[in-house]
């Protein structure tokens, strides 16, 4: 290492040197050194285990609430029922791959309507941009599945092994029956949660109660077991073992989100204008000429990714706001106002330093643009969904041969039509044509009773072939061998749809 000129090194040296003399040592956590500090940088980095401390406060409560909400939605949704009529699946949210349908409550999407999912993804992206530009990495800190499951797994770890200091001690101890029991219990519960998570995933793709019964009686299809196994492995590994490594090394969001906030975004920050100069504080002494930060290290202890927020904005910080709760607890204890670490904007930090009044510019060009784009896309999707047709028709004219001359001199064209019945009930469809005078519609088989009456089941499509022939004496209706022709399909409830095509014959 070269010259030790950085503030950081000085502070660490100070903290280490004055640890024994600190009178507020009851509040100090000397083992709390940031994982990404200059001293801890070998060439290849072993996983540094972060043992975060439990905090109490507003943001911890918000995080518990969000976790409960998101996990309930994830685990419970596959079991919600939705009646669609006889013969149709009754699961509210179902991705039916074999039948190629996506059911979402009252919606039913066919594969060719996949662009609705595109719209949904665009909405999600715009929503994310908007949220990030207003309040920083709220996705990362509160709602990201990696954060939620890691939080859950750490909660389980705390149940079995105790809080931070107890866990550090346990790791240092030799192996004993007690330690084995604790570790085994923790890993067992982790595996159980992972299996349930994997299970919930596959329940979105098949009927949940049926598959659940099959899984416990070991009669489920192999694919189900493979995917549950896969997700168990990934949940256990990513949530239990990898944890912050996912955020720091694997995930692209930290890099992208860093580009999405600006000087008016609310970010979890340490107000160094208030906190510096930091140092231990003896009870009863004045707070004049020094900062409010007593260098207790609680913010570092509470951090699930193990960084020091006082170093400033950094990639590893997922902005989960637990350091805010940790610091507020301490500030209450030493009788100083809360908010030494808090949601702050870069501009407000400069304004405070310059003595100007604070401004919270949540409504600004960037957020307005995101919000408007979001509304436009949402409106487009709502309109598209409202206008979704339940009867569709496609007509494919035979191209080889273009036309056939029959023995009586009439001209015949062949057509393959596809009638798509997206309704949840069966219907009988009547096919007619509108075209040159004298044109006759016929089925392809002479012994079909009613070729133009086609019965189609619910949620199904049917391919039917037709011949249209024009008698010899009507061939003058063709202009240069071409005439317009339309297929009209109606059902017994009055729905109808039209598809235009052409009728071709020899050039006159």
């Amino acid at each position, binding site marked *: 290492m*070269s010259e030790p000129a950085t503030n950081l090194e000085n502070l660490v040296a100070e903290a280490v040197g004055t640890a024994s003399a600190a009178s507020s040592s009851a509040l100090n956590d000397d083992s709390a050194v940031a994982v990404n500090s200059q001293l801890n940088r070998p060439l*290849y*980095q072993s996983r540094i285990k972060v043992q975060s401390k439990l905090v109490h406060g507003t943001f911890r409560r918000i995080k518990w609430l969000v976790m409960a909400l998101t996990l309930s939605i994830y685990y419970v949704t596959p079991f919600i029922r939705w009646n669609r009529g006889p013969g149709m699946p009754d699961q509210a949210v179902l991705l039916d791959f074999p039948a190629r349908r996506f059911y979402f409550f009252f919606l039913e999407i066919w594969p060719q309507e996949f662009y609705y999912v595109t719209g949904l993804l665009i909405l999600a992206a715009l929503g994310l941009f908007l949220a990030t530009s207003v309040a920083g990495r709220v996705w990362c800190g509160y709602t990201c599945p990696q954060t939620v499951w890691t939080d859950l797994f750490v909660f389980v770890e705390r149940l079995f092994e105790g809080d931070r200091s107890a866990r550090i001690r346990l790791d240092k101890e030799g192996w004993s029956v007690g330690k084995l029991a604790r570790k085994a219990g923790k890993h067992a519960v982790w595996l159980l949660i992972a299996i349930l998570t994997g299970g919930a995933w596959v329940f979105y793709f098949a009927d949940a109660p049926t598959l659940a019964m099959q899984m416990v009686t070991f009669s489920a299809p192999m694919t189900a077991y493979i995917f549950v196994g896969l997700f168990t492995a990934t949940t256990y590994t990513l949530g239990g073992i990898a944890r912050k490594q996912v955020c720091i090394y694997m995930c692209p969001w930290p890099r992208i989100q860093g580009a999405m906030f600006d000087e008016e975004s609310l970010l979890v920050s340490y107000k160094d204008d208030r906190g510096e100069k930091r140092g231990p504080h003896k009870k009863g002494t004045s707070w004049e000429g020094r900062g409010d930060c007593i260098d207790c290290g609680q913010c570092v202890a509470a951090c699930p990714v193990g960084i020091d927020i006082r170093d400033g904005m950094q990639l590893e910080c997922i902005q989960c706001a637990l350091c805010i709760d940790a610091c507020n607890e301490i500030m209450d204890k030493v009788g100083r106002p809360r908010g030494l670490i808090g949601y702050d904007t870069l501009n407000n930090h400069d304004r405070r330093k310059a003595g100007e009044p604070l401004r919270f510019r949540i409504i600004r060009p960037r957020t307005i643009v995101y919000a408007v784009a979001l509304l436009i896309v949402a409106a487009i999707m709502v309109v598209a969904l409202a206008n979704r047709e339940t009867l569709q028709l496609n007509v494919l004219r035979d191209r080889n*041969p273009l036309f056939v001359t029959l023995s009586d001199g009439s001209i015949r064209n062949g057509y393959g039509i596809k009638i798509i019945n997206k309704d949840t009930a069966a219907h009988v469809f009547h096919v007619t044509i509108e075209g040159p005078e004298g044109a006759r519609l016929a089925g392809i088989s002479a012994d079909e009773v009613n070729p133009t009456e086609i019965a189609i089941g619910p949620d199904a499509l049917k391919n039917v072939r037709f011949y249209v022939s024009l008698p010899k004496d009507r061939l003058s209706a063709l202009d240069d061998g071409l005439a317009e022709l339309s297929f009209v399909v109606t059902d017994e409830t009055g729905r109808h749809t039209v598809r235009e095509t052409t009728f071709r014959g020899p050039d006159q």
Partner: protein
Amino acid sequence: MSTQKHTDEISGVETTGHEWDGIKELNNPLPKWWIYTFYVCILWSLVYWVIFPAWPYLSSGGWKHTAGSYGYTQRGEVSAELQKVAEGRAVFMKQIDAMPIEDIAKNDSLMEVALAGGKATFADNCAPCHGSGAAGGNGFPNLNDDDWLWGGKLTDIQTTLTHGIRWEADADTRQNMMPRFLDDKMLTREQINDVAEYVLSLSNKADDSAVATRGGEVFAANCVACHGADAKGNQALGAPNLTDAIWLYGGDKATIVTTLSHGRGGVMPAWGARLPGSTIKELALYVHSLGGGK
């Protein structure tokens, strides 16, 4: 590109020493799990080279490659797949072979197989003459229309396919002859012209009705034996219907004169010697389904 390493003020990390347009790179440590995964991938590649085809080398016979201990080849994979398909198809082919052709036409699932097979076989064997859409051409019948020389029923089509028309190698081939009235000096040019006018008059295309009437007498003397008194043809003899709108060689005066003068004798191969019976049944069902089957 300089090689001046220095320490970054903000993070306290050394740079790699390289610089691109003023941009430097911090030399942060790599996570161990990442490095080990990389090593495992390298080890896996060594295993792969031993098991699967991997390295090309030059030998006396040209470029070869190491085959791998597992013996995997793409050709082998394809032939295994084709084998599986043939086995699956064999179930249906046995049924098609055993059933009479009219019964197959009534069985929906067998028809699906037969039509698909017929379509594929048609493209391989029949399209060169009859066209990819079976529309034929001059001298090659259009199989989509409802005009048949030798009969359009399923059994008729099956027989035509099996034994062919004027196919010398087949003993049971369909045989007939359109005489060469001029070349064999059976009729004079004038008589040929007259009878051609008469034939055109049957489709109301004649120019001269007097000539056509004369031609009618020639017709009655020479043509009714095959083409019938009403000129509607005879499918047992393969004689075309001269009153309809479909002409195999052309329906204009000059072509009809040529036909009369020099005769016609198109050849249809006998596929019975070349294709199995079940395939011929599939073909017959397919052709019959093209819109003109009787």
